[in-house]
């Protein structure tokens, strides 16, 4: 595992712990070094989404997809951000596309889980009835 992966792994762990500022510091330092990998944008979006900043999350995922247009993880997380930003139609389009294209993959599982959760109205409950 190289140094970049270690730093990204560390920032992912920090996001899971809720230490968003520290995670962002690592991610922005990676970007400042010129390493504009799609996964860096993915984690920045992940961070924003965890703080319920949907538009910011969409922006980061979009920038990641500019770098890596076929990155399924970025696409599915963009779908999640769109769902939470109450853009269900666009979100479902992306998620269904991933389920069809990558059937059985980790990303397709996430897409399926997101659609199921949306169907049950979980996002409305989890995010304080923002619908």
């Amino acid at each position, binding site marked *: 595992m190289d140094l970049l992966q270690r730093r*990204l792994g560390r920032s992912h762990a920090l996001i899971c712990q809720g230490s968003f500022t520290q995670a962002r510091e690592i991610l922005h330092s990676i970007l400042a070094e010129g390493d504009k990998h799609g996964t860096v944008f993915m984690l920045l979006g992940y961070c924003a989404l965890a703080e319920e900043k949907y538009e910011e999350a969409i922006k980061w995922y979009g920038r990641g997809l500019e770098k890596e247009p076929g990155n399924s*993880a970025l696409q599915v*997380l963009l779908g999640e951000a769109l769902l939470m930003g109450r853009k269900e139609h666009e979100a479902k389009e992306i998620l269904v596309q991933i389920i069809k294209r990558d059937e059985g993959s*980790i990303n397709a599982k996430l897409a399926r889980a*997101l659609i199921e*959760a949306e169907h*049950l109205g979980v996002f409305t*409950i989890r995010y304080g009835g923002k619908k």
Partner: protein
Amino acid sequence: MRIERIDINNQSIFSEAVNESKEPLSFNETISSKGMNGQSDMMYYLKLQIEMMRESREYQAISNVLKAKHDAATNAIRNMR
């Protein structure tokens, strides 16, 4: 009370029964209420059971999303080139 997609054969009967009533009584209210009969007790527990089923499904759905999301992010980091 919002009840949706209940996988019980006579779903419509249960949904109507739940929708026509007000907030469910607490356990103590149910036990101490005068005029309560076996039927209303049964209705109370049925409503409780349906609510619990719904909550359980929702928690399961959230749990699935969180696990899948964690796996997707971990996988993306691991497979970086």
